């Protein structure tokens, strides 16, 4: 079987959303400078190890392993992003401005700020061993000197981020430190001077469109105090819409977790209008929180030169040829479907019109109890909805005020408000909200485009809260334009665990199947078997005992990595670095055999087995597997017959004298069947197969 990794991972579904976001990734790049404090304090402070047999880990180690981990996922997911790794409070110096105490780590064939390469990752992994020799740690800010290593570090990072326009590129500095008071060792005017200078430096950087983010590490006994100095530096005050601010950590896992979350810059899929009732609609952004990750798209290479074919995007040229005349043609715009011995043709325009069954994005139809959302109502990954928080401009919140024949006087008064008070810009437009096109009653609406998110947010929160409280989900019609469909909107409460957000608050849009998509397999089953029995109470109790025994405590969906993907990248990394052996990956998805072999579990299993199967489980199972089906009986009989028939011929001689071709295909097939060879193909192919098998 020709294996194409693309096909395997994509499975039978290809998700337009996923592809969409893939494209986005290339257009919106990110430049990141990892700024790591390398002061002796980072080496001296250790974190309590998670388990007894492990050594304590230094803060420096935690920072380094996090970055290494992130680099590996970056090279896979977002290899267009550029990174630089920069240490400060170092003995040696290496940077563009030749500043003291700042060392930019790099490898060959790479600029300071560049796309991550396989070599960078590999050498970075071994950096810790050689760190003290090649870079060295040193107290940066010491009383009596004018050196300000933090200032230098931010300046160096800013210089690294000079390339690229702030408009098209997200520029970030991620600062790892465990020193909440960098100027604590000095006093007086010098201190305030240094503090002021450093803050000014940071502000300058921020003015240039660089965001500075802090990843603080806790001392075992003393929590990292952000307000001591860093709150000013990263500009925590002021903005209401700061994303969730994680608290400082002292465990490697937490840190990794936080960095991983930081690395995903929120990218919305699209913004859509959610009409709640005719009169009120809110602006939402949709996000793809869960999408299958696939290995990067394949590129065809010339196997001799290893050069990519043509340019990377348009690798192959398509030509359209008319099957009847052989004439070359443009890409046809007409499609056909055979029906009743005719070819029915459709123009692309007609096809898109057929699919357009509703205007507008998302329209509320009603609410149902959560118990109505059955487990089999699912087709593809869900989409997350959160009220649009973008400032006015392109993203308005629209409230559509409507007046029907029956006149809702109040609404008209609202229009009055809008017009007479003049808060609103001229952004008044008219549209016929869908839902009333077919109705006899004449209807039109005046939409008032207001600015801001407050109302949108308020409505969203009110519905969100009440839906959770009442255990309901909303049913709406929407979905993508290629497949409009019913969706369930399930409100999700915010979940915070050990200082980081596990589930964001918002609504998940679950795509519901149509009756055409649901198969009645259970009912079909019923006609093929005789009696149906349900388990007895005792059997259920035994099953319950078993379930209690094999319990995955605190299971969470993102615990397991995809072994196929891990393997794929392990292979790529090894090949990219021209290493000979590929490291064995641990398949995390295998069951815990040791755990299952524990006596308690085994006992529960045995009891359950006995209660259902009685004492003769093995026989039962043997019996079942041994029992041949209709088809296999037939096949067996066939084979026996063929073997018997086969003995009537002297195949060796027939082959030697070239008389095989005088036999009929049926006769030839006796040989094939008797020898377990495939029986397909034309006579010549069959003869060749026989000869090959006989070794002639």
């Amino acid at each position, binding site marked *: 079987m020709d294996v194409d990794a693309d096909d395997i991972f994509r499975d039978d579904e290809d998700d337009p959303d996923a592809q969409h976001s893939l494209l986005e990734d290339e257009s919106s790049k990110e430049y990141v400078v990892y700024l790591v404090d390398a002061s002796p304090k980072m080496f001296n402070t250790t974190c309590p190890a998670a388990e007894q047999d492990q050594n304590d880990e230094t803060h420096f180690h935690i920072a380094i392993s996090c970055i290494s981990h992130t680099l590996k996922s970056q090279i896979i997911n977002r290899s267009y992003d550029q990174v630089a790794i920069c240490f400060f409070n170092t003995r040696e110096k290496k940077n563009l401005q030749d500043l003291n105490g700042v060392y930019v780590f790099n490898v060959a064939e790479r600029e300071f700020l560049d796309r991550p390469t396989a070599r960078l990752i590999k050498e970075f992994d071994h950096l810790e061993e050689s760190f003290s020799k090649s870079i060295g740690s040193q107290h940066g800010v010491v009383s009596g000197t004018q050196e300000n290593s933090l200032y230098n570090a931010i300046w160096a990072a800013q210089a690294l981020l000079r390339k690229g326009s702030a408009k098209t590129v997200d520029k970030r500095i991620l600062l790892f430190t465990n020193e909440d008071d960098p100027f604590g060792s000095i006093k007086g005017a010098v201190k305030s001077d240094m503090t002021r200078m450093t803050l000014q430096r940071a502000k300058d950087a921020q003015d240039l469109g660089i965001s500075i983010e802090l990843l603080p590490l806790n001392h075992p006994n003393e929590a990292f105090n952000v307000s001591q100095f860093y709150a000013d530096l990263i500009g925590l005050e002021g903005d209401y819409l700061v994303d969730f601010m994680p608290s400082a950590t002292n465990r490697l896992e937490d840190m990794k977790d936080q960095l991983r979350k930081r690395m995903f810059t929120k990218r919305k899929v699209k913004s859509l209008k959610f009409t709640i009732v005719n009169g009120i609609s809110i602006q939402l952004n949709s996000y793809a929180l869960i999408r299958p990750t696939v290995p990067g798209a394949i590129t065809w290479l010339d196997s001799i030169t290893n050069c990519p074919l043509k340019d990377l995007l348009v690798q192959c040229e398509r030509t359209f040829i008319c099957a009847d005349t052989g004439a070359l043609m443009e890409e046809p715009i007409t499609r056909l479907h055979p029906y009743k011995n005719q070819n029915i043709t459709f123009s692309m325009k007609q096809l898109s019109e057929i699919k357009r069954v509703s205007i507008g994005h998302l329209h*509320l139809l009603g609410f149902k109890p959560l118990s109505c959302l059955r487990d089999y109502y699912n087709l593809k990954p869900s989409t997350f909805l959160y009220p649009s928080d973008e400032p006015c401009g392109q993203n308005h919140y629209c409230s559509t005020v409507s007046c029907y024949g029956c006149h809702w006087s109040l609404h008209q008064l609202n229009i009055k408000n809008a017009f007479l008070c003049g808060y609103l810009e001229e952004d008044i437009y008219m549209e016929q909200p869908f839902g009333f096109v077919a109705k006899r009653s004449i209807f039109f609406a005046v939409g008032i485009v207001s600015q801001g998110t407050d109302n949108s947010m308020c409505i969203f929160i009110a519905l969100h809260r009440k839906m959770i409280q009442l255990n309901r989900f909303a049913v709406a019609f929407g979905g993508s334009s290629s497949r409009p469909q019913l969706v369930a909107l399930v409100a999700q409460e915010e979940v915070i665990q050990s200082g980081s957000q596990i589930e964001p608050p918002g609504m998940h849009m679950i795509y519901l199947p149509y009756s055409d998509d649901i198969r009645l397999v259970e009912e079909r089953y019923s006609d093929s078997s005789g009696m149906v029995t349900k388990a007895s109470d005792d059997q259920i109790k035994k099953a319950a005992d078993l379930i209690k025994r094999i319990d995955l405590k605190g299971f969470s969906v993102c615990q397991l990595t995809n072994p196929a993907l891990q393997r794929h990248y392990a292979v790529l990394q090894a090949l990219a670095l021209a290493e000979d052996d590929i490291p064995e990956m641990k398949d995390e998805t295998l069951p815990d055999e040791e755990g299952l072999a524990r006596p308690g579990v*085994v006992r529960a299993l045995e009891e359950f087995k006995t209660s259902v199967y009685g004492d003769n489980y093995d026989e039962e199972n043997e019996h079942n597997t041994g029992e041949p089906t209709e088809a296999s009986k037939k096949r067996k009989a066939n084979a026996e017959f063929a073997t018997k028939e086969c003995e009537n011929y002297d195949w060796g001689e027939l082959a030697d004298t070239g008389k095989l071709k005088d036999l009929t295909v049926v006769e030839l097939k006796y040989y094939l069947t008797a020898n377990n060879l495939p029986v397909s193909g034309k006579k010549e192919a069959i003869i060749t197969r026989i000869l090959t098998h006989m070794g002639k």
Partner: protein
Amino acid sequence: MARNKEALLLLLDVGPSMHSVLPEIEKVCSLLVQKKLIYNKYDEVGIVLFGTEDTDNELTSEVGGYQHVVVLKDIKVVDGDIVEALQQLPRGKNDGDFLDAVIVAMDMLIKKFGETNKGKKRMCLITNAQYPIKESYKGTKEEQVTTIAKQMTVHGMRMESIILRGKLSQDANKGIMDENDRLLNIFSKETSTRLLYVDNPISLFGALRTRNITPVTVFRGDIEFSPKLKIKVMVYKKTSEEKFPSLKKYSDKAPPNDKHATRDVKVDYEYKSSEDPDKVVPPDRRIKGYPYGPQIVPISSAEWEAVKFKPEKGVKLLGFTESNNVLRHHYMKDVYAFLPEPGNTKAMLALSALARAMKEMNKVAILRCVWRRGQSNVIIGVLTPNLSDRENIPDSFYLNVLPFAEDVREFQFPSFTNFPASWLPNELQLEAADNLIKTLDLAPHGQQEVLLPDFTPNPVLERFYRYLELKSKDPDAAVPPLDDTLKKITEPDGDLLLQNRAVIGSFCRSFELKGNPLKKSRRLLGGKRSFSSVDVEGNITAQPANLIENASVKVEKIGDLTPVQDFEALISRRDGPDWVVKAINEMKNKIFDLVEDSHEGDNYPKALECLVVLRKGCILEQEPKQFNDFLRHLCNFCREKKLNSFCDYLASEGLALIPKTEAIDSEVTDDEARSFLVKSESKVV
């Protein structure tokens, strides 16, 4: 193809009580046959009607009786004729006896196929079962039905019944309906088929399976709990998207009169070298490369085969966990169903015990699945119990695919609790939301759930097949509008909205009013966001009271008789600031009414009069945009509704948009204003 060939008899009740739903039945049945024409064109279909005025069937001529049963189409391979017959079913005049029809249908199937075609003989009964069946000569009705049902099983026939209830049936004798339900249930049990009750037209559409797909196992083998405990199961797809048909590319190169032209388009792919764009690289010189950072790593298929991940086939249990550890939105793909191996009672029992225990304890199981040998990825899935409440269906499980760590993007979103108080809903608003959620209930207690996915058809596919049929008759047919019944899927139910107008109104009100004062305060502060909650609350309480008062007391309408005068009176009233807008809006409504109700243009002059006076009013009140947008909208509306003649009429009468020269606020130039209608006219043609 022929192996799965099915013979289907449609048993349709066309009695008087069914007349109101017959249009829906016509649509869904013809859709069923249309799909057969595409996907199962060797299937055979026949139509038996009952409740007809006439009688026409073989049994009546052979043995007598069986009145008011008509064999409309004998069983034959599907063709356009059957589609057309189904599109115009005759309306009957008698109350039908479904049992008679069933017997006639059985007779037809037996005569045509005898013992052959076992399991592929299907009947589909659609009736409201409101009228009693005739008393049998010997034994009770129950016994008679049981005998017939047994006969069906012997001959390998199956019958599914779709019974119309609720809104779809009229008031009828409850006793008779109950009796009929009992009788029909015997059929369902004996032939183990579906008996469905539908109470709205959408469900009727969805209840009849228009396409039969034979399920294929994804996996058959063991669920391995441990090497010592394995349970035999069959895994099927439970959901799978029925895609929009993929259409072929059409070539218009062959001469139009060439009957044998395939009209196919072949697509040739050519890979070219980057150094020499004219050189084609042959397939055997191509090698796949995967990106790794800036590098592209070449790997040949053979190499890849040697090093790739090769999991062993099998389904293994990782463990059980609390059901709330897996959230609903984590489900990734279409769903699988795990059923016990047929005929394996122990496996059925084992699954049943586990399913029931899991349900009781609120647990789910996590499985690792590799369906096929040679598959190069694994699936982690969550197994949830599906308890059966029917005695002929075993307990089973559903499996949903879960994401891996790589598939989850952990975006962070601001907590709602961190927002300023003015963004958060107040008590009143929460209550309004509460009421809205409770009243817009799609699964009211004691009633059938509305828009149940299992009964909701795909409106796009329905529309496509209908269009296909239309086009087969007239190649130039326009895309038909969405079926009115199916509009209930894409739009909120008008009745539901109307019933709960008060709740919706108060919902709108409680959120509407909050916006304006906020904006005001913002504007005052030079565009900066300000969230002074005191200010906001003060305004909220102050405004609504007088607004409501104003509105409810003094509403005056533009009448039908003298709209022009009414409008002028309204717009010139100065006792309230809102009259201008009110007048404009009323007038717009009026104009719409006039245009839409117009019969061959008889209202056009009156509508024009209104438009002229509206235009004047809008100029006077400095509301040119109101008028301009309205006129544009009106013209679009007319074009959509095939009322082009009105636009033409306006153009001929010289009505124009309000240009800047007439009202300073207008954004329309003189030229634009004059050419607006002229242009749109030419566009339409």
